């Protein structure tokens, strides 16, 4: 079985070892006899972020962190805990509540050659800084014909939390994902988070790093490699969390967890789902997605954000354009409802994708009545 899995991964870079395929899921549900897996430790996403920031700041003195409450408060969500103490106020900068201003300052610092990590308390607040993210950061390398690259990372929680209302819950993956010049990453597990944040900080281009508040406290097993300070994951590569043969389910961030739960439920009904963790919204790993659909012939895309012009819309179109003859059923999109997010618990639940929505859509592609 491992041999076949390796073969399937032919397209990945050499670094992508066995451990990368849905390690968390495999370890949790199968007995794994690999010695490396036995030594796997657990890490929360919060710890993954903190350790990645710490290591990259340690490795490169040009890396610095700025944002609201990142220093003395130890981080609004405690992501930057201990960093002020370790690196001092020149490298861990508490800003006033002025996103447009401090984002512009961060981009300017990147122009000059520093490597800022700009934290937004949530990406909702980053809308105040949109001009700098798009016009000042994303487009500059192009407009300057390569003279001025912008090695900046914009990171923070994205999407819905729990009952925080319409102005604090939007998912911005689709908006940023449509913009050339940006790289957009959306990790799920602690290992993804560590590897992708380190890659983002080392990357010479502006990277939008979409985290999720509800994942911060979740604990995942991490491989021994992932714990090493040189660990890094490639940008632009999706990860197959579990292999399947009947339907491809794509997801990113918190929705990967939902897709995995849906796959478990579907497995009991004899439907084998292949779950793809996108990891990277831009560049989008169209090759992996299409290869998967060519194998399963069915597609369900899952995202928390709004459906119109969403990430799922792009994935569905890519599959229709490149793998139309392989489709045995219409493509399915599961997304957030087309409304500002309501506060009331029952309405909020209806407005966001649930595991049963993913299961239902997957069954539809298999022509099973629900």
């Amino acid at each position, binding site marked *: 079985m491992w041999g076949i899995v390796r073969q399937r991964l032919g397209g990945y870079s050499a670094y992508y070892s066995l451990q990368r395929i849905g390690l968390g899921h495999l370890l949790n549900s199968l007995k794994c006899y690999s010695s490396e897996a036995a030594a796997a430790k657990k890490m929360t996403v919060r710890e993954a972020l903190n350790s990645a920031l710490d290591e990259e700041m340690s490795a490169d003195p040009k890396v610095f962190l700025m944002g*609201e*409450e990142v220093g*003395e*408060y130890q981080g*609004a969500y405690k992501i930057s805990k201990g960093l002020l103490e370790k690196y001092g106020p020149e490298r861990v900068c*508490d800003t*006033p*509540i*002025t996103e*447009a*201003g401090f984002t512009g300052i961060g981009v300017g610092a990147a122009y000059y050659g520093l490597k800022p990590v700009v934290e937004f308390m949530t990406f*909702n*607040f980053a*809308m*105040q800084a949109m001009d700098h993210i798009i016009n000042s950061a994303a487009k500059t390398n192009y407009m300057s014909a390569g003279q001025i690259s912008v090695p900046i990372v914009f990171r923070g929680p994205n999407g819905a*939390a*729990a*009952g*925080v*209302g*319409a*102005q*604090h819950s939007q998912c911005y993956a689709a908006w940023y994902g449509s913009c050339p010049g940006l790289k957009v990453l959306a990790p799920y597990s602690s290992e993804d988070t560590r590897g992708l944040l380190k890659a983002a900080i080392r990357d010479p281009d502006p990277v939008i790093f979409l985290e999720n508040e509800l994942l911060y406290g979740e604990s995942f097993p991490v491989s021994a490699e992932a714990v090493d300070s040189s660990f890094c994951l490639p940008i632009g590569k999706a990860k197959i969390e579990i292999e399947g043969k009947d339907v491809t389910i794509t997801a990113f961030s918190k929705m990967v967890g939902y897709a995995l739960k849906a796959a478990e439920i579907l497995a009991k009904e004899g439907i084998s789902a292949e779950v793809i963790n996108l990891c990277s919204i831009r560049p989008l790993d169209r090759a992996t997605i299409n290869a998967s659909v060519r194998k399963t012939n069915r597609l369900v895309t899952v995202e928390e954000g709004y*459906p119109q012009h969403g990430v799922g819309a792009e994935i569905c179109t890519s599959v229709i354009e490149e793998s139309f003859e392989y489709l045995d059923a219409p493509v*399915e*999109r*599961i*997304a*957030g*409802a*087309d*409304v*500002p997010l*309501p*506060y*009331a*618990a*029952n*309405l909020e639940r*209806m*407005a*966001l*994708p*649930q595991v049963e*929505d993913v299961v*239902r*859509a997957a069954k*539809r592609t298999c022509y099973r009545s629900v």
Partner: protein
Amino acid sequence: MALAHVASSTSRSNLLRPISAFVSPNLRRQLSTDDTRTLTIETSVPFTSHRCESPSRSVETTPSELLSFFRDMATMRRMEIAADSLYKAKLIRGFCHLYDGQEAVAVGMEAAITKKDSIITAYRDHCTFLGRGGTLLEVFSELMGRIGGCSKGKGGSMHFYKKDSGFYGGHGIVGAQVPLGCGLAFAQKYKKDGTVTFALYGDGAANQGQLFEALNISALWDLPAILVCENNHYGMGTAEWRAAKSPAYYKRGDYVPGLKVDGMDALAVKQACKFAKEHALKNGPIILEMDTYRYHGHSMSDPGSTYRTRDEISGVRQERDPIERIRKLILSHDLATEKELKDTEKEVRKLVDDAIAQAKESPMPEPHELFTNVYAKGYGVEAFGADRKEVRAVLP
């Protein structure tokens, strides 16, 4: 009679022995009579002004006004403390930003204006909503996401509104409410309503660029906009001196006049707001800086003690609590007895408890409410739920 004079004579103890304690009950004035006589009371500290004249320190008030200040602030205080318990019991979800300590700003402002004037604020809005005529039931129902809430449960703590009495919310993004408030003022001038807008913001928001953009336009166009900085000295966990090069927020308008006010003194707030309204109608924008304090942390997720000392918090509570100030005034002027005030507090507590019980009975919104109010006019456009083939609606 100057408060300072009275206060110094009883400086040995915090509790003011009411004069009526020495007088037989028959000679004690009833609460309900004589409530229209005017009292003149001095504010705790004089006003500090920037590019304008300060209003007088002597504030005219009546017994009925002072008693209503006490009752309203006690209601607000009790409401916020009850909200704290409800949040810890997980009946309130998401964010919850409490206003206890700042009640004098809401109450003093209302005393100076009408419901035709407009108020807009950020997310620390429960008491402001109550001051504008909202009910406790609407507050608790909204906080618990029930249909009886002022936003039918769809808004939550940060999104209370009451347009029919000039309350425009309830905003989650720091600073956004200020240009919006200037926009309300623009419309008031456009329609020649003779009313003004109070746009409230905190010391954290005071550095937002959009504030200065809106202020510049308001000054150019002489809009009746009053920017009120509720300076509680901490923007979430960041003290004012760490966020602002100049924390003299009443001066930050530069060419726009400003007034610094003791925000813990409801009478000073009333005087300043009255002054500001007259100024704004004649001369355009003015800034009021209310020196105030919040006892709770920034929100229920913030203990509020990692960036402030407990001594500081209890010190303010001891020396400057807005409710205690009014209590002392009422007692020293013999407008009510200690027992009467305590009875008022008991009554308020019961009203709050009753409202909570009633709010708990309020049902959650119906599922179809998911799709209502997306638009004012939807033209029959389709909207989808999470599974677009399972849940779809037509927007009316």
